[in-house]
């Protein structure tokens, strides 16, 4: 016996026996959830009871949003140019002013957002989104970093290539239609201040960067910029340069801080400068109020209601399933080898 204990003591020193720990033995305390019928039904019902109200609230919010959409790109081309739109839009001497009327369907409370909407304009096109220089926009020191801006990077100023500020296709194609709204012969004031993100005006666009050589090449893509105003104050440009995610998009033009009554007629006096005719794009003016969910969009509400409804349906189905075809949890008769034995 003595020998045995001696041996045991000795072997303990050199023993390779793995030290016991709950981790190495894979016995860490664990939560082992099993979704019992009760839990399954509860979770489906919970989803349903969460989603249906959210859906209803969203729909309600969306319904309360008043939205006026005025498409003007076709109406604003004079009769005589209808056959050759591109000659009209590219000629800087033609009169681009155009007048239209819109009616307010419901009372609109301030702030009322004025958007322009472009359809079929791929602001997310690969050639386009890459064509900008964020360094140049931010600081005058990086005026020459225009490498990413090709093909709108430099301007050939009498044989010397000078940088364009702001360079790139995005800036070059700046939207330049203008809107004036008149209600009962009184001009509605559209506030164009504060339409861009604060972060953009403060950080992303430099207050010491001034436009240079902008729109100087032969082919003009869009609006021009006042060279005496720094980029950080050019809010239209800043809004435009937040490239849209999708080919149909709106961009904020300004805000109206007075309310519009139902059945008010508003006269729109606009300058139809921007060329969307070359690619069959549409231009729309949009006046819209807003809610917590954003603009007028029923999709989320309907989606929530659908998912909630489906979950309710599933919960009912599972209740029926559990009632009519119950299976005790852990019932060994369902084990494959037991089923085989029964057969």
């Amino acid at each position: 016996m003595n020998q045995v204990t001696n041996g045991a003591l000795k072997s303990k020193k050199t023993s390779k026996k793995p030290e016991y720990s709950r981790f190495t033995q894979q016995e860490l305390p664990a939560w082992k959830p099993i979704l019992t019928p009760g839990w399954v039904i509860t979770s489906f019902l919970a989803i349903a009871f969460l989603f249906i109200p959210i859906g209803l609230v969203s729909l309600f919010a969306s319904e309360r949003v008043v939205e006026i959409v005025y498409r003007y790109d076709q109406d604003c081309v004079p009769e005589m140019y209808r056959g050759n739109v591109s000659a009209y839009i590219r000629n800087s001497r033609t009169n681009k002013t155009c007048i239209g009327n819109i009616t307010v369907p419901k009372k609109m409370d301030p702030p009322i957002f004025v958007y322009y909407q472009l359809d079929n304009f791929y602001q997310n096109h690969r050639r386009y989104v890459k064509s900008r220089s964020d360094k140049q926009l931010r600081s005058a020191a990086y005026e020459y970093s225009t490498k990413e801006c090709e093909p709108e990077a430099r301007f050939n100023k009498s044989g010397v290539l000078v940088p364009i500020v702001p360079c790139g296709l995005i800036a070059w194609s700046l939207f330049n239609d203008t809107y004036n709204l008149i209600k009962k012969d009184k001009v509605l004031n559209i506030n164009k201040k504060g339409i861009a993100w604060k972060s953009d005006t403060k950080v992303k666009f430099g207050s010491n960067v001034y436009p240079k050589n902008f729109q100087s090449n032969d082919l003009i893509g869009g609006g021009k910029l006042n060279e005496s105003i720094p980029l950080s104050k050019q809010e239209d440009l800043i809004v435009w340069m937040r490239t849209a995610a999708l080919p149909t998009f709106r961009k904020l033009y300004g805000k109206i801080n007075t309310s519009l009554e139902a059945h008010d007629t508003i006269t729109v006096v606009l300058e139809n400068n921007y060329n969307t005719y070359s690619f069959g794009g549409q231009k729309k003016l949009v006046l819209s109020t807003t809610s917590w969910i954003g603009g007028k969009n029923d999709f989320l509400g309907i989606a929530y209601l659908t998912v909630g409804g489906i979950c309710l349906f599933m919960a009912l189905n599972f209740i029926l399933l559990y009632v009519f075809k119950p299976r005790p949890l852990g019932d060994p008769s369902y084990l494959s080898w037991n089923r085989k034995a029964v057969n």
Partner: protein
Amino acid sequence: MSLDDAQIVNVNNPQQLSSPDSTLQRQVLDLGSKRSRDSERYSSISMSHREINDGDARLVHVNDALKTNERFEFAGNSIKTAKYSLFSFLPRNLFEQFHRVAYIYFLIIAILNQLPQLAVFGRGASILPLSFVLLVTAVKDAYEDWRRHRSDRIENNRMASVLVSDRFQQKKWKDIQVGEIIRFSADDTIPCDTVLLSTSDPTGVAYIQTINLDGESNLKTRYAKQETLCKTPEKDVINGFIKCEKPNRNIYGFMATMEIDGKHLSLGPSNIVLRGCVLKNTNWAVGVAVYCGRETKAMLNSSGAPSKRSRLETRMNREIILLSVFLVALCMAVSVCAGVWLKRHENELEVLQFYRKKDYSEPEVDNYNYSGIGMEIFFTFLMSVIVFQIMIPISLYISMELVRVGQAYFMIRDNKMYDETSNSRFQCRALNINEDLGQIKYVFSDKTGTLTENKMEFKYASIFGVDYSGEKTNFEGEQRGYCIQVNGQVWRPKMKVEVDKELLQLSKDGNNSEAGKHIYDFFLALAACNTIVPIVVDTPDPAEKLVDYQGESPDEQALVYAAAAYGFMLMERTSGHIVIDIQGERQRFNVLGMHEFDSDRKRMSVILGFPDGSVKVIVKGADNSMFNIIDKTSKLDATEGHLQSYSSIGLRTLVVGMRELGVPEFERWQSSYETASTAVMGRVALLRKVAINLENNLEIVGASAIEDRLQKGVPEAIESLRKADMKVWVLTGDKQETAISIGYSSRLLTSNMHQVVINSNSKMSSKTSLEDALITCRNFLVPGGSVALIIDGTSLVYILDDTELEEQLFELASNCAVVLCCRVAPLQKAGIVALIKKRTDDMTLAIGDGANDVSMIQMADVGIGISGQEGRQAVMASDFAMGQFRFLVPLLLVHGHWNYHRMGYMILYNFYRNAVFVLVLFWYVLFTGFTLTTAITEWSSVLYSILYTSAPTIVVAILDKDSSRRSLMAYPQLYGAGQRHESYNSTLFWLTIADTLWQSIVVFYVPLFAYWKSDIDGSSLGDLWTLAVVFLVNIHLAMDVIRWTWVSHASIWGSIIATCICVIVIDVIPVLPGYWAIFDLASKGSFWVCLLGMQIAAVVPRFGVKMFIQHCKPSDIQIAREADKFGSSMELARQEIELNPSRR
């Protein structure tokens, strides 16, 4: 392993066994390289039948390194295991790393991305993942290599004593050259492969330990040739040369001839000591270097084992090909659409504000980045490959490696697979087949040492027809075994044996009675006819010494210990004589010759010169080989009867015969023995012929019965394996009766089984017996009836030789519950494994402990070595090694099952995770004029599979357990999940793909419709998609996690938090276009509504289907889990396997 387990192994070329058919044939010839277990025993047969011819030989001039190395063809003794030098590191390491297909794929994509036309990602983002992986691997390699450099330096600068101009001088190891004479002292490590010239022992014996070489700690004997013994290198000029084979990997074979002073000597493996061995119990030895440095056998053997690929991975690769087809299809779709779009807008491209084909800044207006529609389509295709690259989950390969390391960690650390007796943990030698352990269908097991302990104990003896199987005395208490007095010291055998009182008394009485005479012969034969070396070991008590019998065959050890217990104590053995203390009287016997054991003869013999001048040949061997050469007498019949009864209770038997040689016969034998053993050509065959001529007309001396106990837990383990629907086949070299009896005691065979026995001696008879067996088998194929097939090696020879018979055997065997193959040679073991592997898709596992199992272990899908009594060859060849057979149960049923489930789930999840991301990118491309813009930032794209989602899948694949250890052990049937491929199959793959499609649609289109016609910018929407996808894939994983430990919580929720942090960090860098987007986005209600809605809508179908299946078609695992949690017992209708009471 025993004498009758044929001891053959292919050390030479383990890879050869990998392809079954043709190689097997070749093997038979090639396998001349029979395993020499110790000393001179195998010198004659150790190399193959071929002899050295001049072209294949190297000529070593003794003590003349210059002449030897005239042509500078032999390597010096400096070794270089390090792979790289300072300069070669970068190119070589990169070259080696790029051997992996995955990295090449990475590289090609990264290179494509560098072309200006195709630059989708920025430089940094595109190179980061690859360079990260390369860097980590390179640092690891560099560290390992630095350690190798260090150990090389230490090794090369060790000192050895080398003969230089007639004096032994210290020389660094690296300067030793072939042909130099080296002198070793006790406990020196041998610096290179050296042929012994002389040793401190007058008979030229040197003891060496080969633990560094093969892990065996037994002392082995090596001999210097008599002719060189007397030479002192300092004084006598040794003129001569050694002609030996070219360097090879066979550490158990060596073949050479030495010509010295005009005499021609043959050298075998017992004359060479190998690099890495240690000289023990010998004061000094002198030898001549024949192989140096990298040409030494130790170095040639240091290359790794061939790697296997797991079944799951093979299946996975099939699906990866499918995924590449998807990838190509996606890319084709995008490029074709892009072509159509360009064609339709061909005339507008110039004025389109968002395209503008021409560059006006140069004086010459030229196209900018536009080279015609055809090229644009081509570029779009390549760009889409770059954007969608992670559709092929390259990171999966890296994750799998990490996961396997983690799984191996837990297997090694498992307390339940630690063996106390041998103090050994479980070992994972192959790191890439963990998951195969969960799908095993066939288990091929060796018997001796695997099912049994291989601790032989002498039990009974039948001496000259008299059975001595009486009651045993307990040696404790009464007397402390037999001991002798030597120079005032007490020597006693190290191991004590229970003795039969009657027999002990008779043997003490000595030659006085007739029976005593036979007993004398019997024990003398046991003590003499073997290759055991007695080593005297000190004990704490100076007056007492222990005699340790060192030898490789446990049977022989048991016999010698038994002889010692009965008063025949072997005290000394040299190549020329042995000294045996017989009842206190020391006697010296000359060993005049010895015929080694070989697997053809299945016996060994020794020719002994007695003190009285007579010469006797003593032969010991397996019964069937002995009965043919023993004269038929009534005693023989009686012995045969005893043997029957011994083996029927599972004992291993050996028969001993003896004959006195007359002078003429002795002289005739001696001359032919000498000619044969110095023959240059066909020495092996000649020696065997001499042996066969001598071994005949013997007189029966007796038979011994040795017990080899079953290992602990074997019957229970086998029962578990059988319940788990695994077929357990036992392949043994033992006799049929022994095998059957072990079969009963290990519950492999039960009394209600019908036994079909096939013992045939010809092809025809095997054919008929196979056909008969098939018919019987069909008759018994009713529920409840089962058939056990017992087949012997001779029949297998004929059957495995013929494809048609092989087919029949397979059909028969697959219908049998149990297959027992007895008397099979090692190659047949591999052949049987190959038979199953060829014909089914089922996974095979082979488990064994001895050198004779190596071929089988390498042939099977999973090879397991038992690190037991018999050396470490099986372990070296195996994929996994463990101490006890019963650990197979936790290994397969628990770890194997977990590993399989985890790996299968991880692969599917990785497919899903990457595909869902790629599809979101793809849907977006459809709304960008097919131009491969990604709303998701390039950094998020790159980090997605590296950081955002990698940790949880790895953690879950290492830690999650689909069922508890307790249930898995209690219900072995649960193992069926792996056999039925329940965790990974093509149905699951397609379901996953369908689910992926749905989830990607939800993730992409919900925001699309929600933000259509809104003023959202690309970066914000991109952030929304990034977060949505990462949340979704993590929630998806969370839904499938079964055990939530803190680690899984931390990894899953941690990943989500890490993603949020990364997205925020990316959005606070002002020079990126998406500056501040996430804050703007999160301030709006629609973002939160969208995010929540997407997650739920995406997972609801999966949840519903999963719950439905769980309720209506629950898997076994599911029920076990429920039972485990809610404590209901699963005892009902448990199948009882009838247990046969042990027949012992």
